[in-house]
């Protein structure tokens, strides 16, 4: 019977230590969650910046004038901005874009176009 009482003691200690260790672990993991919540807020902030930046981008890139295929253009712009900022398109929103007059000479333009075609 004494052996059994010893066994009971081992059981109490064994389960006690197992529970204490894992309960402690579960509370430490709660800290993880809090820390990761803090960092996820940080991720949200630059999101807005991206939107602003991207508005500026388009203003520079685009020319005024007739609008051909807005949706397609927006999709291309969004993808390009997303790729250059290392993010995904769902985090970006194109609010407006406007074409700007370029003061590049016809020769220069032709040169660029041919270069792009060659590289492709």
């Amino acid at each position: 019977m004494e052996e059994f009482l010893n066994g009971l003691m081992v059981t109490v200690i064994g389960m006690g230590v197992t529970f204490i260790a894992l309960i402690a672990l579960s509370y430490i993991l709660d800290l993880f969650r809090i820390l990761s919540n803090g960092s996820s807020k940080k991720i949200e902030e630059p999101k807005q910046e991206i939107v602003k930046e991207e508005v500026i981008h388009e203003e520079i890139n685009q020319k005024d004038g007739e609008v051909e295929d807005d949706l397609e253009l927006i999709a291309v712009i969004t993808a390009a901005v997303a790729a250059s900022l290392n993010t995904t398109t769902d985090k970006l929103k194109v609010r407006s874009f406007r074409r700007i007059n370029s003061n590049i000479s016809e020769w220069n333009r032709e040169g660029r176009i041919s270069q792009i075609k060659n590289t492709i």
Partner: protein
Amino acid sequence: MDFLSMLGETLKDFLSSTGFSALTMGNVIMMIVALILMYLAIKKEYEPLLLLPISFGMLLVNLPLSGLMDHPIGDQIGGLLYYLYQGDELGIFPPLIFMGVGALTDFGPLIANPRSILLGAAAQFGIFFAFLGALLLKYIVPAIHFNGPEAASIGIIGGADGPTAIYLTTKLAPHLLGPIAVAAYSYMSLVPIIQPPIMRALTTKEERKVKMEQLRPVSKNEKILFPIIVTILVVLLLPAAAPLIGMLMFGNLLKESGVTNKLAETASNALMYIVTIFLGITVGATANAEAFLNPKTLGILALGLVAFAIGTATGVLFGKIMYKVSGGKVNPLIGAAGVSAVPMSARVVQKVGKEENPSNFLLMHAMGPNVAGVIGSAIAAGVLLSIFG
């Protein structure tokens, strides 16, 4: 005439040096047991990666006069398997396997739902229940008597974790290694049969239907920090668990750090399979007729089953408590995954949950308690080791 008598003598000598002359009834029975296990491994695919090497080791060692497990005597070197067995005896192989397990395990579901860890602790009741059962068995069956260290080794079968069971048994009761390893791996492969009836009996239809919220995504930093923190916490609390927990977490860090993919790959593939071969065949080789064919083996097989069943039951019961406390957000079935048996018991939970509600996906929720069970059973083994070791 002389020639004929000489030939007769030589033939007689040769015959006495063959195994046939030394074959005992015990050997024959053990060979049959080995062949049955081999059949189960090959045909039924019961944990074949371990059961096949174990059964072949068992077969080899029961072919008499092979001397594969002989100790070295004087100048004479020992048997092949004796030397390989040193990896078990010195406690080297099981922690190496744990390293591979760590490199394979994703602790993400556990980090995402920290409370599920408690289920991994609750399911360890099975270990201690079987431990007490082993101590009390002599009052019911006087022929079977287990002392403390033996009872502890039997109880650990309930941890449903092969390497842990082998590690603890080689330290506490090496003479029982064969039957305990066979029981542990057989019951692990029988998890899909043992667990569902217990899970259904202890839960209501409503409880089994509970859908759980989707787990939050876990960041890379958290996954890297987890093994480091667990190691520090657990090893400080329980130094005896260091070989198992330390190697498990080391393997996991190799995986999660993202800079040691080659090491993680080796630990979880090539190295783990190499060690599995050595571990399996040498564990099987401890099952000689004298060690295996006695009433204790029957006791071990019965108590191992009790350990599994009670571990499942206490896990589910604790899951019910969490169901009540959380206001019905936790599905109590995931408690059954608290016995380690990764990922088999999590799959069982998924299956039983899906039977009640086909749109219910509990697999990832069950993986939390499942991997917590690995940590829990290693801690329980550490406690038993520090008390009886």
